[in-house]
């Protein structure tokens, strides 16, 4: 292995041999990977081009009927729309809640910064399933939030906050907030703090300085953070399944339902293939935005 390593600086003839060595070294991992990941994904995609012939039975003939159903049947369109609506609400929630925290983390020189950063990251270190369960004593009819609101006289009857769409939105905002905060912090850090001061000196109020200076300059972070959170929100399964109480049908819960209870594998495979393509395209778009932003940032430094 190491012979090849130093061959980087060796004569071209030996480099050629070294290239072959590295191909051999990468081969086992690639083979394992193709067997355990690429093949199953292709197998699943193939499934979407066949019809269901009975529970857990798949026909042999090639068909596009599954995809046709997905773009014409209002039932599927509703699931697609609900999934996008969920992604949009979660993204908006993360932006509104996350921006002030990101601003603080980017600008403060307080000795609490490290602690604050740790608090932001810490939910990621606790199992997703545990975090989801923790919402029930908070959001259920006799939970903390309803108890507090009833005591304060804000509401007359308990609000349905969990086992529905609301619960899923709350749970996903919580789960994805750290990603939004970390993305925004990186971008805000790169914005010159003097610009805000200049805006203030020129007579802009805090709100105007935010709207006309900080927000436009941090837009690349807002866009890439939003793409990241949106993609993760529409891909998530555990949170919609638990906090939705088996009652919220989005792409992920629909796919799981087809494979676990309805046993219509082709329909589930079609939805899974669509979700896969959708998520992959969004991720590539996010990478594109980040690269473009990185280039403009380095240009900015050079200027």
């Amino acid at each position, binding site marked *: 292995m190491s012979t090849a390593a130093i061959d980087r600086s060796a004569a071209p003839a030996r480099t050629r041999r070294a290239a072959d060595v590295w191909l051999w070294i990468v081969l086992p991992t690639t083979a394992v990977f193709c067997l355990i990941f690429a093949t199953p994904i292709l197998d699943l995609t193939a499934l979407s081009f066949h019809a269901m012939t009975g529970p857990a039975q798949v026909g042999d003939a090639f068909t596009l009927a599954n995809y046709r159903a997905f773009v014409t049947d209002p039932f599927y369109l509703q699931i697609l729309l609900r999934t996008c609506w969920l992604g949009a609400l979660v993204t908006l929630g993360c932006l509104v809640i996350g921006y002030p925290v990101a601003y603080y983390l980017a600008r403060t020189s307080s000795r609490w910064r490290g602690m604050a950063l740790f608090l932001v990251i810490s939910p990621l270190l606790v199992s997703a399933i545990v975090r989801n369960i923790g919402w029930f004593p908070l959001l259920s009819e*006799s939970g903390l939030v309803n108890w507090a609101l009833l005591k304060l006289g804000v509401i007359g009857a308990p609000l349905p906050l969990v086992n529905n769409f609301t619960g899923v939105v709350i749970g996903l905002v919580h789960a994805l907030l750290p990603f939004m905060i970390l993305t925004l912090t990186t971008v805000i850090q790169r914005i010159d703090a003097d610009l805000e001061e200049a805006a203030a000196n020129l007579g802009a109020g805090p709100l105007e300085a935010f709207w006309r200076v900080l927000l436009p300059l941090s837009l690349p972070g807002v866009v890439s953070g939003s793409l990241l959170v949106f993609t993760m929100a529409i891909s998530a399964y555990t949170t919609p399944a638990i906090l939705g109480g088996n009652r919220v049908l989005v792409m992920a819960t629909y796919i799981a339902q087809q494979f676990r209870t309805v046993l219509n594998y082709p329909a589930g495979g079609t939805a*899974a293939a669509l979700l896969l393509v959708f998520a992959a395209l969004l991720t590539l778009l996010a990478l594109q935005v980040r690269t473009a932003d990185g280039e403009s940032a380095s240009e900015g430094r050079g200027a």
Partner: protein
Amino acid sequence: MIRWFALRATLFLTFAFLLAPVCVVVIASFNGGPVLSFPPRSFTTHWYALIKPEFFAALEVSLIVGAVTALLSVGLGLPAALALSRGRFPGRDGLNAILLSPLIVPALVTGVALYQFSLTFWDLTHVVLGGTLIGLIVGHLTFGIPFSVRAILAGHARFDYALEEAALNLGATPLQTFWRVTVPVLRPSIVAGGIFAFVMSLDDVPIALFIGGGDATTLPVRIFTTVEFDFGGDVMAIAALIVGGSIVLMLALDRLIGLDRLFGARA
């Protein structure tokens, strides 16, 4: 000043929001009344005594699968990462993208794909993958390998080749150089990759739900399927124990390698 106060208040509320569900799990697990009611009416520890043995069996499955996944991820990830960062062969960038691709595929899609694959695989070979520990490990390797490849690639970017040349000049064989220079220099990122694979394996629901089952049920999946039907204090108690375990693990990692370093490897 008012601005900073408003910001402080917002920060405080956000941190409360971030920590709330985790803290509530611990508090609710000691609730003597109905476990989903808040505030608790009385203090009890009896939920902990009621945790069913199947949860501990599932914990064992989770730990075994996590440990084997971590070891295999690093074992398969290290050669791949070295080849990707040092080799100059055609298709290298493409291979790089392919090996990292599971990280952009929704875990649920990987889960159902593996489920479908286990059916096809049985048809072809009559080897059972679904509901076995091997199946679970295979499933978790789909993200374990990319995580460790990415961590080692990141660590390797700062690699100083002069160290290897010095070892070779001093008479070390290539194999000695590999084990006594290359691996120790890359150790932090190798460890970080392995820990990520382990933690993600312990956390995963969608993949283990579809490839596992029966005796091969991980702890998160056991909790998931229990919660689908009925929600008792024993679930809160086991969840609280997981929180405790996570804190111990976090502190240990912080002492051993530093959490900032671990997260540096993730980015």
